[in-house]
C-alpha cells in the first residue's frame, strides 16, 4: 500500500498564534497577501460571558480525490502516486488560476501573479525526504498539529482524542481530505472561497 500522509489538528490546542503561517511563508517564500495555511477564528459563540471561541487551522488537505487536479487543464497540479502529496509542476502551470482555485473547497491555493505560477502547500516534501516533519508541525508552539502516515495516525492521536471520534472538514465535497480534527462539532461556520462554507464539522 502506498504511503499516505495525514495530520491531526488538535482544536483544543491551537491558540491562533500564526507561527505556522509565518514560518511557512518565510520558508517557502509565499507571496505577500497569500498563505499556504490558514487559521480561522471561530466565535465567540454564545452570549457573554458564556462564550466559546477557537481557532481552526487549515491547509491543503492533500485530498484523496483532489478536485484541483481534475480541474487543472495542463496537468500542472498532480498527485504523487507514491505518497499522495498534491504538488504543482510549475513548468506546466499556465496561470489560468481560477480553474483550480474554484475547484478547491479549502482555499488552499496561493497564486503568485508576478511569476505567473500557482503555488500551494508541498507538505514540505524536502523535509519529509530527510525524515523531518513539515515546518508548520515543527513550529507549532502548542504542538496542536500531529503529523504522520495515515496508518500511524490513530496511535498518534489517541492521547489527544481519548477515543473521541475525529472529524474532517467539508466531507460533503467528497474529496477525502487528509486532515482530521478532534473537537466536537461546535465550530459554527468558516467561510470558504466564493461563498462556499465549511459547514460544521461532520
Amino acid at each position, binding site marked *: 500500500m502506498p504511503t499516505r500522509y495525514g495530520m491531526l489538528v488538535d482544536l*483544543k*490546542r491551537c*491558540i*491562533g*498564534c*500564526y*507561527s505556522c*503561517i*509565518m*514560518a511557512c*511563508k*518565510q*520558508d517557502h517564500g509565499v507571496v*505577500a*497577501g497569500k498563505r499556504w495555511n490558514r487559521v480561522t477564528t471561530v*466565535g*465567540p459563540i*454564545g*452570549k*457573554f*460571558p458564556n*462564550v*466559546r*471561541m*477557537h481557532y481552526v487551522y487549515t491547509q491543503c488537505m492533500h485530498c484523496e480525490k483532489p478536485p484541483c487536479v481534475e480541474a487543472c487543464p495542463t496537468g500542472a497540479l498532480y498527485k504523487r502516486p507514491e505518497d499522495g502529496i498534491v504538488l504543482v509542476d510549475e513548468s506546466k502551470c499556465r496561470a489560468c488560476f481560477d480553474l483550480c482555485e474554484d475547484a478547491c473547497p479549502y482555499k488552499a491555493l496561493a497564486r503568485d501573479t508576478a511569476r505567473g505560477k500557482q503555488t500551494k502547500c508541498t507538505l514540505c516534501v524536502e523535509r519529509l525526504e530527510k525524515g523531518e516533519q513539515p515546518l508548520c508541525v*515543527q*513550529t*507549532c*508552539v*502548542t*504542538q496542536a498539529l500531529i503529523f504522520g502516515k495515515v496508518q500511524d495516525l490513530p496511535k498518534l492521536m489517541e*492521547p*489527544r482524542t481519548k477515543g473521541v471520534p475525529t472529524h474532517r472538514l467539508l466531507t460533503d465535497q467528497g474529496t477525502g481530505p487528509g486532515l482530521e480534527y478532534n473537537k466536537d462539532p461546535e465550530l459554527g461556520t468558516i467561510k470558504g472561497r466564493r461563498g462556499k462554507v465549511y459547514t460544521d464539522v461532520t
Partner: protein
Amino acid sequence: MPEEKLVNVFCGPHCGAYVCEFQAVVKEGKVENLRIHPKTKHPPCAVGWTNAKRLYHPDRLLYPLKRVGERGDGKWERISWDEAMDYVAKGLTEVKQKYGNESIVLYSYVAHHGSPGGAADRSVTPLRLFNLWGGCIHLFDRGNLCAAAYWQSMRRFTGTIHLARPLPKDTELMVIWSSNPVATSRRITPRTIMESKEQYGLKVVVIDPQFTETAALLADEYLPIRPGTDAALALAWLRVIIAEGLYKKDVVLNHTNALFLVRSDNGKMLREKDVGGPSDKYMVWDAKTQQARTFDTAGVEPALTGSQTVKGITVKPVWQRLIELVEPWTAAKAAEATGLPAESIVNLAREFGRKKSKIQFFPIPRFNTTSYGEYASIASEMINVLSGGIIGRMVMRENPHAHIDVGFHATHFDTQVVPNPVSKKVPVGHLAEAILNPKRYGTNIKALYLFRANPVNQHASTQKTIEALKKLDLVVVADLFMSATAQYADIVLPACTYLERSSIREASPVGVGGWTIYYDLPRQLYYCDKAVEPLGESKDDYDITRLLAQKLGMGQDYPWRNAEEWIADNLEKAKENPKYPWLKDVTIDRLKREGIVDVPIPTPPIDWNMPTPSGRVEFYNEELIDMGYEPLPVYLPPRESPEGSPELYKKYPLQLLTSKFKLRPNSSYGNQPELREMYTPDVLMNPEDAAPRGIKDGDKVTVFNDRGQIHLKASVKEAIRPGVVRIYQGQWPADGNVNLLSSDELTLYGENPTYNTGLVNIRKA
C-alpha cells in the same frame, strides 16, 4: 552553489519570552532564511519568523538624517556619520555647558534584549558614557511602562520582584488573573498549561474583563471582572480565607509581620524602645503573660487579634487590622464593585483556599497599569502567601531584569557603570510631564538621546509627548525605521537589527522566564552572532555609542572595538569572579558555535528569608505611611471610571483597555507587512454598546475622549464586558495609536502609566 552558513542568533524584542534562539541561514552575505534552533527545538513565534524580512524591510533607515524643516515636518537631509556625530556631540556639549548634565536625558530602553546595551544591563554601554561625562537623567532608573506597580509593591511586600511560582505537574488550580499569556507568552507557557490540564486535570480560572485568547483556550471558568476593581476582588477573597480559616497559621506567625503590633496613634510598628526597652525589635502581644514582648522572646504566644494598651499607646496586631480592613468586603459588596456574581467570588476563594497545590499566575498583570495597581498587587499576593501559594522566591537585584543571576549581566553592570553624578530621576512614563512642567520633578530637560524606544507611540498621551519633544534643544533618535518618535528628532541615526550585531543574554529554555511558571529551570546563556554586516550605513548601538564617546573625547573608555570584543572581555571578567564558578567552561567560541550554552547553576534553596526590613513578608508596610500611602492594601475606584469620575463618565461611558497584541511586541514590528496583513486594527466592543450607537461589526468608527480621537474598525463581538472596549496598544499612527486616548497619570509609587484606566466614547465614523 554558493556556500550556506548557519549562524546562531536570537530574537528579543521585549515580547513575553524576551529572547528566542534560532539560526540564520546566510548565503552570499544575505540572510536567506531562518531555522528552528536544533538545540532548543522551541519554535520562534509568528513575530520571530519575520525577522529576516524585517532586516530587508524597504523602510529601513540606511544612513543618518538631519532635520531641515520644523520638528515633525518630515523634511530630512542625508548626512554622513561624521557630520551626524559631530552635531550630536556639539549639541550635547552646548546643553551641558549652558544647563548642566542634569538637563540631558538618556533613554535607552527595552526594544531589544541583547547586551551590550540591553534591558538586562540597564543599557550599560551608553550609561557608562553619560555617567563618565558628568551624568544624565537615566530613564531606566525610575518607574517603568508596564510592570513597576507590581515590582515596587513586591519590593516592599517580599523584598523580591515576585515570588517564584513553580508549577508542580500536579497543580490542581491555576488562577490566571488580569493577564493573557496565551497571546503574550505564546512560545511555551500555553503548551505547558495545556499539558497540565490534559494529563493532570489542572483547573484554570481566568479573570479578565475581556474574553481573551487565554480565556478561550485555557479557562474552565471565566470571571469577567470590571476593569480596575481587582483589589476589591482580592479583599473579598481575603475575607473568606480569614473568616473560614483557610489560611496557614504557621506561615502567618513565622513568615509574615502580621503578628507584630501596630500603634494606633501613628500607624508605626511598636518597637521595644517605644515602651522603654533597649532595642528596635518588633513587639507582639503575648497571650500567655498578657503583655507586650519582643516577638523573639522564648515561649511567647503571639495573639493575632484584639486591641491592647501598652504604656498608654493603643496597639493592635497587623492581623487584627487586616481583619478590620477586609470585614466590610462581603461577597455582595465585592460583587457590586467587580461586577462578578457574589457566588463566584466566594467559590473561588474557597476553592483556592482548600486546594493543596495552586497558583495565581499573572505575568505583568493588567491591573498594574490601572490607577492603584500597587494595592491590587499586594492584596493578590497576600492571598498566595496566606493560602500556601508561595513556595519560593527570586532574588531581586538592583537590576530588575536579572531574575536569573548567571553572572554575565551582573558583571558588566558592576564593572562598567560608574555612579551617576546626577541624582535627579524622572519616571519614564513622565518624560513629557517633566519637560512641560519642570517643577514637577525639579528638572530642566533640554536634550534627549534615545535608543530602543518609541515614546511618542508608547507613552501615554501622545500629544503631550509630541508637544514636549518640540520644546527640546536637541533630540537624537536611533531606530531601524522612521518611528513616530524619530519624526520629532533633529538627528536620526540608523540602527541595525540583531541579525547584524553580536549580543548576549542570560536566559533559560523558556527565554528569560521571569514571568513564567517555572522555578527549577536550567540557566543558559543565549548568544546572537552577527549574521551579516549592517545594511547600508546602519550601525550597531554599541558602535554608535563608541563613536559618540570618541567625539566627546572619551574614546579611551571604550577600548572594545566592537560588541563581540565587549562581550568576550566581560565574559573573562565574570569568569574571574569566584561568585560565578559555573561560567568556567563558557567561551566566546562555544557561545558562537552552540548558540545556547547551559550554565550549571545550583537552584537556590527555597526559603522564607525575605530581604525586607523585618526579614518577613511585610503584610503591613510602615514605610508606605511616610510616603503617604495606605500601609495595607485598599480598594479605590480607578481615577477615570464610573465611580472615580462620575461627571466624566457621563460624557465618556466606555472604559478603555489597551491590551498587548500577539503579533506585535509593543510597537515593534507594527510595520511588518507579513504580520500586518494578518489583522485589521480594531476596537472590540460588546453588541450591547454597539447597538444604541448604530454600530455594526466591521463599521468604521471613531473612538474619542478629551485627549484625542482615533479611527478604527469596530469588532462587535460577545468577547468583552458591556461598558468596556479594547484597543491593542502598539499600533503605529496610521493604524490608530491608542495612546492618543490614554492618560499619563501614573500609579502610586511604582509609577507606571495607567494605560488601562481611561474613559472614551465611540461613534460611527
